[in-house]
């Protein structure tokens, strides 16, 4: 994306944020649809559970929409939203050791549950492989110190730049780079056999 295109996207986002701040439900919905995947991915990498990640998405958007009137014009809504989501996911992790979900009503198993739609997952064998890989990835991520996990999730799943992460987390760019490096090295060490063709990951400079 060239500089003009990036600015256009930012302006479009700003317009949407302005409308959402005035309580325009369509604009809020559009922001939700555009950013929910990134928020979910970051939250999922941090919490390791789909239910928790969905709760984080829900909470992050409610918080963000509730504070939009004071959102600083010109700042990145996406960066701010991901920061909120990361904080919520960390809150959740901190309270997890005592976390326990109590269903209000017994869950009716005959009722069809939402399925997870993933076109990359094919037949039953493939699903089993995918489930095993996902479990290994979760375990590997849990090995990382939380500050590395956070930065890695924002970088790999949130599509954030070093600069955006530095701003969101409140650490300098060198520290961000170092955390990403060490996180990826550890993950490759633990998961490298799963995706050998991805061994040569690269970081790309985004034209800004």
């Amino acid at each position, binding site marked *: 994306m060239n500089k003009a295109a990036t600015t256009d996207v930012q302006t479009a986002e700003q317009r949407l944020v302005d409308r959402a701040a005035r*309580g325009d*439900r369509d604009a*809020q919905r559009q922001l*939700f649809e555009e950013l929910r*995947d990134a928020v979910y*991915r970051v939250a999922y*990498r941090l919490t390791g559970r*789909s239910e928790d990640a*969905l*709760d984080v998405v*829900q909470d992050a958007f*409610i*918080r963000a*929409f*509730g*504070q939009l009137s*004071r*959102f600083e014009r010109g*700042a990145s809504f996406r960066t701010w939203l991901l*920061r909120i989501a990361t*904080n919520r996911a960390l809150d959740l992790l901190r*309270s997890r050791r*005592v*976390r*326990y979900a*109590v*269903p*209000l*009503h017994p*869950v009716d198993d005959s009722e069809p549950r*939402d*399925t*997870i739609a993933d076109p990359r997952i094919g037949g039953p064998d493939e699903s089993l492989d995918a489930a095993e890989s*996902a479990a290994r*990835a979760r375990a*590997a991520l849990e090995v990382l110190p939380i500050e590395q996990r956070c930065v890695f999730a924002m*970088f790999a799943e949130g*599509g*954030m*730049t*070093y*600069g955006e992460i530095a701003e969101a987390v409140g650490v*300098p760019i*060198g*520290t961000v*780079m*170092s955390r*990403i*490096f*060490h996180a990826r*090295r550890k993950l490759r060490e633990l*998961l490298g056999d*799963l995706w050998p063709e*991805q061994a*040569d*990951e*690269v*970081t*790309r*400079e985004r034209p800004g």
Partner: protein
Amino acid sequence: MNAQDERCRDVAPLLARALSGGLDQLDGVAVDRLAAHLDGCERCAAAMSGCAADGVPTAVPPIAMPADATWERVWRRIAQASETATVTASGADIVRFRRFASTAGLALAAALMMLIAIVGRLDPGRDTAELRLAPGGAVQIDGIEVADGTSFVLTIGSDDAPVIWVIDERSEDKP
């Protein structure tokens, strides 16, 4: 050339490597040296600032995304909670969610049932109930002290567990 320029020149090969996607090929010592320099040098940090993964696969498998129906349900709750929060918070920062915790879970579930009994039933088919703690009541929900007259919003989470939204004045996510 001043001392700063000289320090920049020292790390220039490392910086060029990192910028061209070769960070992973550096060793830990080199990365730590570059990181220390970036943390103290605005100019070099600015050069690194725009780096992003941009669709590059990571060493971890892709995440399966929720189905459309799940997103629809999440959106409905955001819209409902935002509406309720606007009405209830009246100037308070925003709501925060807390799920039941295990050790406190039973007591909280009991407290919640009492609240529901006092304030009104959570109708089947209705996702949200707005609650108000009865006079004389006070409960602790994951570190948030909830006293008389506090407003709650009760929703059902994605896994059918109750989620309590509590009006929280202490927001740390200032934009």
